[in-house]
């Protein structure tokens, strides 16, 4: 059964982004004709058409919508043109395609997966992930003479910068005061320029599927999706920089899997990248910077935010973000959390509860809130699966957000030539991710003998230390200290 919501979901008027009407693309969902717009993903086009239920849970047949919106959580897998397990939240919408909900695990398709024989690519540096860290890493390596292959799963580069409509903090020389979306454009233009000069190859809609045995250097398998058929690349590189980003955390409560419960970042993607309203009234869970910023951006898109609840006794994000939300009349309730989501097959409301000083729910403090969307902004976990498969030394560092690859101050892991940067190396800000990317990119170029510019490396390290020096930099400071210490006690790079 499908659930169709009846509100106007395309955002046409916005203070920061110019959402023009784009070319209409007809497609088929469950044998019915739908119309999306050029630039949509399959999931965003379905969302705009009122379809929020994309899959059913394996065991109880519960309806599921997407949670992360950036290709990480697998709750949007559908069959597209006969091919199952397509991550519809990142798969671009194409004219005339057939989209179906798939039976449980999905049937092995008749269509050939690999339309062509595998191709071999030889580069100095492979950069995995074209977010702030990956883009800066690729630029830095290429500018210092290394040949670079930049791979990203999405249809365009920029990572999560492309939805950051707010002006960034940081230092003036690190583009503070510039909006994330504009930084993404600038970095993209720089990459395109180097691509024209033959110094960087960019591969979008592509996934690094694994790390393989090699007689020398490093060897990765990369699959690029083309019209839902895939091409396999055998990538040989002297160094690899893994800037795979992070995934939003889920919170445990009844109803957390109903369509309409999203990661806050997923909602930010839906409204700021695809121009689609996630709902009419939102409950935000978490008052860190992500929760506060996304709440404000919901208001900017004309969506009501009922309130922000925060389990901690204090607001975790910057006061300036909290203040701008408060002066728009949005309450922020600390020592409060979500107890359960109400609704049958979709979100119709939520029950919040007050917490005592031990973070335990206080009896009879429940309150019902009417809303159709719940956003969870309760932290992120580094995406380290590829790093684990490579076999680098990893440790669980709570301050870094989970398991992270141990690395030194050049961002090199326990395996020589394998580097890490950005959220994948510990959850932090985009501004620090960009500098970490530069450090990894430059260090890789130095490692390969392309440059000897140690002075610049020192300068980047100093800039990073400056950004982390304040009280809000305490967690990453502790995390990076632990990582460096553990790296030392583990064996040296082999």
């Amino acid at each position: 059964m499908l659930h169709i919501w009846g509100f106007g979901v395309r955002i046409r008027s916005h203070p920061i982004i110019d959402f023009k009407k784009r070319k209409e693309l007809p497609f088929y969902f469950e044998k019915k004709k739908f119309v999306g717009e050029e630039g949509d993903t399959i999931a965003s086009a379905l969302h705009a058409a009122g379809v929020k239920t994309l899959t059913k849970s394996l065991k109880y047949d519960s309806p599921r919508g997407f949670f992360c919106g950036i290709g990480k959580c697998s709750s949007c897998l559908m069959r597209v043109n006969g091919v199952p397990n397509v991550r519809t939240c990142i798969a671009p919408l194409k004219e005339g395609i057939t989209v179906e909900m798939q039976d449980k695990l999905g049937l092995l398709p008749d269509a050939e997966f690999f339309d062509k024989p595998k191709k071999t690519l030889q580069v100095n540096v492979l950069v995995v992930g074209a977010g702030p860290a990956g883009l800066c890493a690729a630029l830095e390596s290429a500018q210092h003479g290394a040949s670079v292959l930049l791979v990203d799963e999405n249809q365009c580069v920029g990572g999560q910068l492309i939805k950051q409509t707010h002006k960034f903090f940081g230092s003036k020389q690190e583009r503070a005061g510039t909006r994330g979306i504009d930084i993404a454009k600038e970095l993209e233009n720089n990459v395109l320029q180097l691509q024209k000069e033959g110094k960087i190859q960019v591969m979008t809609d592509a996934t690094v599927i694994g790390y393989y045995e090699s007689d020398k250097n490093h060897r990765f398998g990369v699959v690029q999706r083309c019209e839902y058929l895939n091409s396999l690349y055998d990538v040989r590189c002297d160094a690899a920089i893994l800037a795979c980003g992070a995934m939003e955390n889920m919170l445990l409560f009844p109803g957390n899997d109903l369509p309409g419960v999203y990661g806050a970042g997923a909602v930010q993607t839906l409204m700021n990248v695809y121009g689609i309203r996630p709902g009419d009234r939102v409950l935000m869970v978490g008052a860190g910077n992500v929760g506060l910023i996304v709440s404000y951006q919901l208001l900017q898109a004309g969506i009501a935010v009922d309130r922000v609840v925060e389990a901690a006794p204090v607001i975790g994000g910057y006061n300036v973000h909290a203040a701008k939300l408060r002066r728009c009349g949005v309450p922020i309730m600390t020592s409060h959390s979500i107890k359960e989501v109400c609704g049958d097959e979709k979100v119709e409301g939520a029950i919040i509860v007050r917490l005592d000083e031990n973070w335990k729910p206080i009896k009879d403090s429940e309150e019902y809130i009417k809303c159709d969307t719940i956003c969870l902004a309760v932290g992120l976990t580094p995406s380290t699966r590829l790093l684990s498969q490579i076999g680098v030394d990893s440790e669980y560092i709570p301050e870094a957000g989970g398991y992270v690859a141990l690395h030194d101050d050049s961002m090199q892991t326990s395996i020589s030539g394998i580097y890490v940067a950005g959220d994948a190396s510990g959850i932090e800000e985009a501004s620090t991710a960009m500098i970490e990317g530069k450090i990894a990119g430059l260090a890789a170029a130095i490692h390969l003998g392309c440059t000897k510019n140690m002075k610049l490396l020192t300068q980047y390290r100093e800039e990073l230390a400056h950004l982390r020096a304040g009280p809000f930099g305490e967690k990453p400071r502790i995390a990076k200290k632990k990582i460096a210490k553990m790296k030392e006690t583990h064996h040296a790079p082999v």
Partner: protein
Amino acid sequence: MHQYEKTGILCTKDFQIPSEEQLKKGVAILECVQEIPCNPCVASCPVHAISMKDINAPPMNDFEKCIGCTKCVGVCPGLAIFVIKKVGKKAWVTLPYEFVPVPKVGDTVQALDRTGSLRGTALVKKVIKQGKTMVITIEIESTFAMDIRNIRV
């Protein structure tokens, strides 16, 4: 612990307050009290009134030097700078605004305080576009000069 860490709302003892004389001249109020790594306001100031010990220190405004030019208002990533100028029984409040629709000069809009509560009406005196941020000057009753920090169109 500061109350604002719980509520998100600053009160006048949390930040630098200018004298009545300085308010008549028109000065920038920096409602940015935490140590966060950010410094574009310092570079935006044409008279070097805004200073910072280091990138994490809260900015300080030298009200004697400040000329109330409003350049910093549209620059601040935190949308946390307001210029207040007292004009007789009225006060002009210049604030950053990132919503649609954008009001026009001469429009009457709702004046909101730091909690988003409606405190009366305001007359729009100036609308300047600074990038995608609108820098809007409104006229309100002088008694509300330190309270009104937002508008609803």
